[in-house]
């Protein structure tokens, strides 16, 4: 039986997933900037996401706002617990977001380079902090009553750094696959080379995080490695392996430019399923369940009615906005 709290958990997971994929590829563009020092290449890369980045980032606001509304207790515990990485992520997004506009307004080439670095630094730091936040949540948060009960550096562990770096690599992979879709010629060949490298790094990250997770907590271990549970969860790693192989092959092929992007998204889907298996039914692993953190029924219902109507509408017009700017980019755009 699908109750409202479960529905909200699924809806929020969906919002966060859409965020990760969409802002993932445009943060990825920033992460890939250092590999393309030429101004012309950088203009092209930025133009490939300029019409859509703002909409992509809105899913992050929905994720935060939705958590606040549907699971206020979780919001009130998680955010103070992750205070330093969250504040750093927000400031990084400030740098990155304004770089989209400021870069075109800088008169001197020197200042333009500063904004390029703001774009790079902001993108890398935002991705890293999101990964660290994920790792810090997975490894568990100390709860005291209805508040965070731990210290200020609890979030910083080898595990959270590993998830942080993995997310940076994953976003770079998404960014490279997006550029593969949007560009042609020499530039596209260079992008594919990067896509291959970041595909390897991403899969390595997935493997390491997956190997470490069961040992964080006995609950995780039982879920993944106890018999007969292992039979139910086995398809996840198998599918990851299959997707990784298909991705490798598709990046080397010439005919289907959209395929690597779809397969990379597939990898992220499997990571999400894996996360779901690890965390369910908790919102803060092993201390606060979704049910405990849930807002009252009236709050969830009021929002759910709206969300059920509005999310499909949003998906339609967001899809339309992507459709308007479809196709390969003209490298001379913006030079008129």
């Amino acid at each position, binding site marked *: 039986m699908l109750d409202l709290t479960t529905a909200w958990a699924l809806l929020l997971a969906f919002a966060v997933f859409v965020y990760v994929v969409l802002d993932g590829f445009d943060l990825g563009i920033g992460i890939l900037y250092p590999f393309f020092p030429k101004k012309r290449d950088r203009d092209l890369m930025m*133009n490939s996401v*300029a*019409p*859509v980045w*703002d*909409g992509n*980032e*809105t899913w*992050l*606001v*929905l994720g*935060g*706002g*939705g958590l*606040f*509304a*549907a699971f*206020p*207790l979780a*919001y*009130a*515990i998680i*955010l*103070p617990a992750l*205070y*330093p990485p969250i*504040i750093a992520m*927000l*400031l990084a*997004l*400030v*740098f990155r*977001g*304004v770089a989209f*506009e*400021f870069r*075109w*307004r*800088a*008169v001197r080439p020197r200042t333009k380079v500063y904004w390029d670095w703001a774009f790079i630094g902001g993108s890398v730091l935002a991705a890293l902090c999101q990964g660290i936040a994920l790792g810090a949540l997975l490894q568990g948060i100390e709860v005291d009553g*209805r*508040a965070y009960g731990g210290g*200020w550096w609890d979030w910083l562990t080898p595990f959270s750094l590993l998830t942080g770096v993995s997310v940076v690599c994953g976003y770079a992979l998404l960014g490279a696959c997006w550029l593969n879709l949007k560009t042609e010629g020499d530039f596209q060949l260079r992008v594919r080379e990067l896509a291959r490298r970041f595909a390897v790094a991403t899969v390595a990250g997935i493997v390491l995080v997956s190997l470490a997770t069961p040992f964080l907590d006995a609950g995780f271990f039982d879920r993944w490695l106890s018999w007969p549970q292992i039979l139910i969860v086995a398809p996840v790693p198998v599918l990851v392996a299959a997707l990784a192989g298909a991705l490798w092959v598709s990046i080397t092929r010439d005919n289907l430019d959209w395929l690597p992007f779809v397969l990379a998204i597939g990898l992220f889907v499997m990571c999400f399923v894996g996360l779901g298996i690890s965390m369910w039914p908790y919102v803060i692993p092993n201390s606060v369940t979704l049910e405990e953190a849930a807002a*009252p029924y*009236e*709050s969830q219902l*009021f*929002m759910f009615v*709206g*969300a059920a109507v*509005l999310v499909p509408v*949003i998906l339609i*017009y*967001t899809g339309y*906005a992507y459709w*308007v*700017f479809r196709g390969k980019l003209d490298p001379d*755009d*913006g030079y*008129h």
Partner: protein
Amino acid sequence: METIFGLDALMLARIQFGFTVSFHFIFPALSIGLASYLAVLNGMYLWTRDESYLRLFKYWLKIFAISFAMGVVSGIVMAYQFGTNWSVFSDRAGPVIGPLMAYEVLTAFFLEAGFLGIMLFGRERVGNGLHMFATLMVAVGTVISATWILSVNSWMHTPAGFAMNEAGQYVPENWWEIIFNPSFPYRLAHSVTAAYLTTAFVVGGVGAWHLLRGRSGNAGVRTMFSMAMWMIVVTAPIQAVLGHEHGLNTYEHQPVKVLAMEGHFRSYEDGIPLILFGIPDQEAGEMRHALEIPRLGGPILKKGWNGSLDGLDTVPDELEPPVAPVFYAFRVMVGLGVLMIALGVWGLAARLRGTLYDATWLHRAMLAMGPSGFVAVIAGWLTTEIGRQPFVIYGELMTADAVSPLGTAAVAASLVAFIVIYFAIFGAGIVYILRLMGHAPELGERGVRAEPGPIRTAGVTPAPQLGEGSRGAQHPAE
């Protein structure tokens, strides 16, 4: 309690929220007005096919793009700061205000963001009709966004329609009463009008700048100045009325705030004076060096010439807001409002005499008043937000009880980071906006993605060359 420079974690968190929200609000104040202005300009262009409107559209679109981006990134910070710094408030008020904020995201943020790309870059791809639709959606989105967030803010001032559960959370009972809480309609009307007025002063100030530089031959310059002056003369008096009504509503629901705004430390039996200026001394509970008009305070509060009033001396000290900042900020806002009305009348007089485009002193005054809207808006927010202290949810939850259990050092570090980065980043943004404003709108105005280059040095081009378009011919002498 652990302090840094005499400030504890609570005060630092308050300063951080006040600083980031003030900085943030500057951009929506402009974006709300500019989005509607752009929709009007684009509509006028499609209707009249007068190129000068298109020129103005492209000109202000570039400024809008920067302002909007700064509003978005500083707004994301706000969406998370409730949780990072005010976690007890978030836990307890989340069930009531969380859904309203989620609706803001679903109905407004996505709408703005989804159509912004088409508005900025899509005219050639989708055609004029759909581009106009996208422009309208962005404008509508900014107003919907203001509606939801002001409903949330108003609920914190005049909470209604809720109950409390056993976990100490405020839970919804009647959504209609929550959304349309008593102060919401007044705050919404006053704030949205403020955004339009702020934008009118920005547009008018830019127009005045170019008129003072001898560019009255530029049809775009004349059009923007004229439109702004119309907007000001109509909107400024309306805003005064709305503000007064908002004040009366505040007196009904948050009388202590109004006492602080008016500086009434003492009670009156027969006739309430209107205190114009003075130096509030909260310790002593009196207004020093007060300049006051006898009895005029009564009619303003709808109490008549012989009315009586219970002053701050009837309020327990621990429930009083800090009087001085509220008293001063309120005077800044009202003073600027009076100047705005005066400028609107002056502009109308100049228009009737046919000297709108060559009344140099009017242009100078308009230029000086260009940023006045921002100052008035921030002063207004300081009045209302400091005025509801010591509560965060008025009469329900004290600010001191709402804060996250954070260490002083952690909040101090984040506050310093916010201050340094905001001044650097948004300082640069304001420089870029001013630079765009420094060029007059020209024939063949470039799009959003065009970079600054030699063609843009409009200052050296003789004014008559810029004065193409149908309206140019009507003003050959200028």
